[in-house]
């Protein structure tokens, strides 16, 4: 299994006006890396999940995500935006956006790396580190190290 994320999947200056645009920009990176086979199909799956209940969480994070048949392996695309994008959280826009892509047919083992990622997201130290990190390579390194996936 390759890593959960790579520097190519990280955009520290995400420039998007809204949720759909932010998600699309990050999803394009997943598609370019060959992790998403059908960009629009995947975005539809993410939108369907988002429609159930917004994925914005307190503390300025958004976690659009989906299990989708268009995803080949568990992947994370990460975007950071100073302006913020509304993800429906009560306390304001999200500045850290984690687009989590999971293959729909993946077995439980496949999913543990995403479970580990989700658990890290809760920790303020992890979020602070991602807020302060200066380049994509360092961010990818840090995420990989923290989540423990290799």
């Amino acid at each position, binding site marked *: 299994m390759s890593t959960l994320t790579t520097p190519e999947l990280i955009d520290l200056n995400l420039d998007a006006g809204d949720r759909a645009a932010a998600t699309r920009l990050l999803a394009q990176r997943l598609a370019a890396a060959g992790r998403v086979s059908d960009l629009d199909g995947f975005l539809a799956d993410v939108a369907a999940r988002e429609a159930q*209940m917004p*994925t914005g969480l307190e503390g300025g994070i958004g976690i659009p995500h989906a299990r989708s048949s268009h995803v080949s392996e568990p992947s994370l695309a990460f975007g950071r935006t100073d302006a913020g994008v509304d993800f429906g959280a009560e306390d304001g826009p999200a500045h850290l956006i984690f687009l989590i892509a999971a293959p729909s047919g993946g077995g439980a083992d496949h999913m543990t790396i995403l479970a580990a990622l989700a658990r890290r997201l*809760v*920790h303020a130290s992890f979020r602070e580190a991602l807020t302060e990190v200066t380049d994509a390579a360092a961010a990818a390194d840090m995420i990989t190290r923290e989540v423990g996936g290799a």
Partner: protein
Amino acid sequence: MKLVAVTSCPTGIAHTYMAAEAIEQAAKAAGHDIAVETQGAAGATPIPPEVIAAADAVIFAADVEVRGRERFAGKPTIQTSVKRGINGAAELISEAAEAAAAAAANHSELESGAILAAADRADLAGTSASGLSTKVESGASVGARLRQWLMTGVSYMIPFVAAGGILIALSFLFGGASVATKVNGGTFNGHTYAAITDPTKILSQVGFAGVMFYIGSTAFKMLVPILAGFIAFAMADRPGLVPGIVAGLLAVAVGCGFLGGLLGGLLAGAVTLAILRVKVPRALAGVMPVVIIPLVTTFVVGVVMIVVIGKPIASAQSSLTDWLNGLSGTNSVVLGILLGAMMAFDMGGPVNKVAYTFGLASLASGNTKIMAAVMAAGMVPPLACAFASAVRPRLFTSTERKAGEAAWLLGLSFITEGAIPFAAADPLRVIPSMMAGSAVTGGLSMAFGATSRAPHGGIWVVGLIGNPGLYVLAILAGMLIGATALIALKSLRGDVVETEPQAQAASAAVVPGNVVPA
């Protein structure tokens, strides 16, 4: 404080785990132990039953149905969205701690009252918002679960057996066994009494013993409904309670006794579980728990009890009665054995009723020997169960041992129902053993030519018994044989494994006025 939690979300890849982590962190920060079960895409590892049993409160942070929710039944529970599990974990933990403290306070309040003499500490330890708990563990085999369902019903029923049975026995002691006939009507030792239909007149017409008898009988009437209701509760949680209780009431109404109630309870639990699985449109979901589920389950179970179970039982009873009447000329010892076995078969159920009614009819026509045999045989099951649980306590659960302490008095008073807690918990071993013991007693009583001019009363009407010495011998012989058979059958299975948590041993005995130690 010990907490457990379940987290789940629609996709099962993000929120489930975030909530789990947040809740774990918050619990740690507040100094509590916690185990979290994540029901997500990475698979769920169930929390071990013993951890759940030891937990003071439960948190469900879930946007989809919690799988295996019944494992947590009876615990103080905080139910919330998965998002709140992430954003408000600290608050959630303090709410859970408050709920646990409230339940504990409620629990000690209950304990300070003498009413709960017979209540099980294991039940109290699980006192929740609903105040009720089951002994059901997850992951147990079908046989073990069936036993746990039955034991849950039995443990709630025992206080009714104790309160009702002992009140009836005391009313015989203070007022003479004729109080029952004076209240319910009928013939006792040659005197015929009319039934008293207005209970407020009992005090003036029969005296205080009559009032005690009436109260005891009323408590006794709840025995089968409570058994059935809490069997269904153990299976299907709170929604099972209504159809279960109604099934029990109908079992009584159609005269199919505790075995009918036992089946009715299982049926009610199964029907409720089936209906809970039906997916309903969102618009209906709100009225499901208060209107639709009770309505449908109760109706379905009720129809089955009356039409499918009640009718055949009634016709079987009348053909059994005809058959017994046809036997009148045969060997009296054989008849005694047969009546004895019938008395023990269902302890107040249809077969027992046929035998007892046959005894009453014989008494009315002047044959006091048959009445004596029927009464002696009816005294055996509680005595044999009490004896067996006293000499071989390890073969019985602590709930059963407590029932055994009350069963002595009930047996002496010819209240066969005293053995129902044993029979309902383990029918396949208890019923045949009791039938053997009662058959011996019935046969011996006939062989000794003992007579009884009283239709009930047990040892308290010994003055109306002809040949009392041998009569008591017949009862003792049956008691020993019934207890020996029961011990033998239970030994084949081995020592009972206590499924209840440790607090069990501290429970109080089933004795009125005995306060549960705090």
